[in-house]
């Protein structure tokens, strides 16, 4: 009995020590390789948007919209980093969405753990979201027929992220024009 307890305590101690050492090592490496999420997103906004303009942050949040920024051009580009649920095993995808003249002109994937993103991109899935007036459009459908076959979870999550961005953008415009929110 005493032998069993001794063995058990030894196992627990060894596991704890290994886990603590791992934690310390990871903490150290994380400190060395840390990337500020805001800076990372602003850099992405700049490189992906295709404009030479500088983006000014309008909103930073932990909800469905992580970052919302506006370029300093005459016809501004709005860049949104939005989250969408419904991926594989309820996974969440982050999408970079760029809006100009009230319509989306570019979509790009952000952080996610989906393995079927290539299928979504190869199927030109983003095309159906482009050049639609977001101020009047309804939510994009997540019905099975509107998704990419073989990647229905991933395309659902992408659609949800785009719907979240669209709703946020619409509300933002309404607040600007003094409409109801």
């Amino acid at each position, binding site marked *: 009995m005493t032998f069993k307890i001794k063995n058990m305590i030894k*196992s627990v101690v060894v*596991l704890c020590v*290994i*886990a603590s050492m*791992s934690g310390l*090592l990871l903490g150290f*490496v994380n400190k060395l*390789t840390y*990337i500020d999420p805001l800076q990372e997103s602003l850099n992405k906004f700049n490189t992906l948007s295709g404009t030479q303009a500088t983006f000014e942050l309008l909103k930073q949040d932990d909800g469905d919209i992580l970052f919302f920024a506006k370029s300093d051009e005459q016809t501004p580009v709005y860049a949104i980093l939005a989250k969408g649920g419904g991926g594989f095993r309820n996974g969440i995808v982050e999408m970079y969405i760029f809006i100009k003249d009230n319509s989306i002109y570019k979509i790009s994937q952000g952080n996610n*753990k989906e393995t079927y993103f290539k299928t979504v991109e190869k199927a030109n899935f983003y095309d159906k979201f482009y050049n639609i007036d977001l101020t009047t459009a309804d939510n994009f459908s997540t019905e099975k027929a509107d998704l990419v076959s073989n990647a229905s979870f991933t395309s659902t999550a992408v659609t949800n992220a785009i719907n979240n961005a669209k709703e946020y953008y619409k509300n933002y415009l309404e607040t600007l024009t003094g409409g109801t929110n």
Partner: protein
Amino acid sequence: METLRDKDTFLNGLIKSNPDFVLVLGMCPTLAMSTNLLQGFAMGIATTFVLIFSNIFISMLRKVIPDKIRIPCFIIIISTFVIIVELVMRKYFPDLYSTMKAFISLIVVNCIILARAESFASCNKVKDSAIDGFSMGLGFTLSLSALGFIRELITSGTVLGLSIFNNFPQMLGTSSKAMGFIVLGLSMAAFNQIRIKNSKKKAGVK
């Protein structure tokens, strides 16, 4: 004597027990990440890093880790190095990381790593384990790179994104997973044919 044993350990992972073509381990990342040379090579390097360091640490701690909890301990050690690879790739190779991230995380459950930890590192010295990790990783990297090279070439006529053939005809289905299996099978057959022929030649069998 020591050098001869080191050489044997090294050649073991590279040729005799090549993880991809002989042991047929790690097929999931092999098929998924060998669509082009760069991805295949990067996946191989990431796996090699994890293999070397997890082998070293497991070998160092082999006398301390109780037998009954060895698997959880191995997994903690392996996942630590996988997360380090993720963090480094995210910082220094963001584009490559964004296309490979799901499979980088999955290195934790790559059977080559756990198999080497269980069958080699947990019962051998640190130096031997490090050599074993390096040779297994190198064998994996070379086979993934070879597959990536072939698949990229037949799919788009390019190598590392550089065009090799002008006006390369786009053949239907060459980028598919089925083609991945076919290329893997043919490469495996060719590799083993050469390997067996050579070993027979060395043993003097006609």
